[in-house]
């Protein structure tokens, strides 16, 4: 077997490589010294601050700036048509989730900050490496995402189609094909297909989209992958593959593991008015929750990447034809004692 041969040949590598790999891992001496200093500091603080034994997590602010993009509501005949492969489920029984500082929040003029350039450059460089002879250009698309644009757009084999009229099963088949054919672009050890969307536009056309995120044995990591590290495949108006979007958010600044509330508690908070939304309808007790999931919001306005429960509530519409509108409302999943500015929603609309 060829792989046995490779394994055997790997056994012949230089002694210094073998010895080096067997040494106990230390990032570097400075870091080790810093760690010692930190431990000393922590011990000192712990002695000084007794009985305050728990680590104090910094308070975080909830971002209620959505960027004036209209209101977030999805149209569908039934809520079950709104789909995605969000790995979160209530059964996970998570008690904490990590919160990160968004390193590249938009500046006051809503521009991507200059500080992101280095990070974006790396993403573009890495994305270029993923190409395998495809005729494509790679460019930045925000601080933490890049776009690969194929020119000309790539036609899928005849048995596949990618348009408004495809069923979920047809898109699933196509996604399986994409997963195999473009594994070098997806570039993940164990990609999970995420078919998402399923809502209708004003012309009554339904659209399902394809993306991928990496699997993990850890629930938290799977959630982070789903929200922050994704590869999306887009089509042009002729159903050809023209763009791939790669998002890899910079999660280098972790604030800590924050205690989170349960879905039940979040529902209560929602009806108490502690939510953020762009929907011009205030929640009242007669409005029914049709769907709920846990997500991280990750757009440029957010100062922090933090988890939210996302609720889909049917709201009035005047479209007719039996189609319904589901407004989206967010309740922070982090316990309120860690939130600086969470107030009852005032009903304002951007």
């Amino acid at each position, binding site marked *: *077997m*060829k*792989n*046995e*041969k*490779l*394994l*055997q*040949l*790997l*056994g*012949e*590598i*230089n*002694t210094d*490589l*073998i*010895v*080096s*790999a*067997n*040494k*106990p*891992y230390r990032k570097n001496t400075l870091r080790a010294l810093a760690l010692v200093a930190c431990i000393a500091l922590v011990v000192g603080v712990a002695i000084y601050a007794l009985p305050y034994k728990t680590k104090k997590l910094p308070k975080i602010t909830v971002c209620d700036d959505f960027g004036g993009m209209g209101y977030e509501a999805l149209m569908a005949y039934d809520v079950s048509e709104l789909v995605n492969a969000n790995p979160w489920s209530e059964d996970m029984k998570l008690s904490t989730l990590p919160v990160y500082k968004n390193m590249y929040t938009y500046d006051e003029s809503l521009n991507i900050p200059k500080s992101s350039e280095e990070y974006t450059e790396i993403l573009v460089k890495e994305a270029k490496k993923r190409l395998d002879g495809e005729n494509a250009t790679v460019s930045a698309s925000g601080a933490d995402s890049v776009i690969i644009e194929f020119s000309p757009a790539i036609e899928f084999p005849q048995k596949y189609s990618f348009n408004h009229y495809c069923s979920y099963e047809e898109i699933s088949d196509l996604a399986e094909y994409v997963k195999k054919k473009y594994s*070098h672009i997806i*570039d*993940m*050890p*164990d990609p999970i297909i995420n078919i998402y969307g399923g809502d209708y536009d004003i012309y009554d056309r339904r659209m399902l989209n394809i993306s991928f995120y*990496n699997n*993990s*044995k*850890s629930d938290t*990591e799977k959630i982070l*992958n789903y929200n922050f590290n994704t590869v999306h495949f887009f089509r042009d108006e002729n159903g050809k593959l023209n763009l791939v979007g790669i998002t890899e958010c910079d999660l280098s600044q972790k604030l800590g593991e924050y205690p989170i509330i349960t879905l039940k508690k979040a529902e209560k908070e929602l009806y108490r008015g502690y939510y953020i939304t762009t929907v011009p309808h205030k929640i009242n007790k007669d409005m029914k929750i049709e769907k709920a999931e846990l997500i991280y919001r990750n757009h440029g306005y957010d100062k922090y990447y933090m988890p939210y429960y996302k609720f889909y509530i049917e709201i009035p519409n005047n479209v007719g034809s039996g189609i319904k509108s589901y407004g989206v409302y967010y309740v922070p999943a982090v316990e309120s004692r860690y939130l600086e500015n969470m107030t009852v929603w005032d009903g304002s609309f951007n």
Partner: protein
Amino acid sequence: MKDSLIIELFWQRSQEAIPAVAEKYYPYLYSISYNILSNKEDSEECVNDTYLKAWDSIPPQKPNCLSAFLGRITRNISLNLAKKHSAQKRSNGGYYAVLDELNECIPSGESTEKKLEDRMIVDSIESFLYSRSLEKRNIFIKRYWYLCSVKEIAKAYSISENKVASLLFRMRKELKEHLEKDGIYL
């Protein structure tokens, strides 16, 4: 006991040489073997065979680095035993998992019939490894030389298993490209 003294015992054909090696290197050699075979008795046997092989090899050899010298012997003996077992069920954890992963590094071979000498392939693998950062290189060697599990590596480096898996996945892909660039098709 210092390695130089142990080697001296071997050279003097002293009965103390093997107990001295065992005292110092048994856990290290056992872990290499166990990573490959996932079996206590087989691993112990491989380590004992390592001592005998070392006894037969020193002299004439005088290894510069005894740990790597012994580790290499244990690794080879264990891989051979695992190969023997392959006629039976594919039940030996680490060895087969690593073999499956390494499949991804193997260029297709259809485009060329040229076969290079093993040494050239090893040189190419080494140049690939030296061109990577120390951390990446060590993680790769931990996995494919020591056959450590992803979980063990993640723990040793205080990073997530997912990150280790992603890093290895990328490196396997890069190694394949590197070998192909060097005109190597196994």
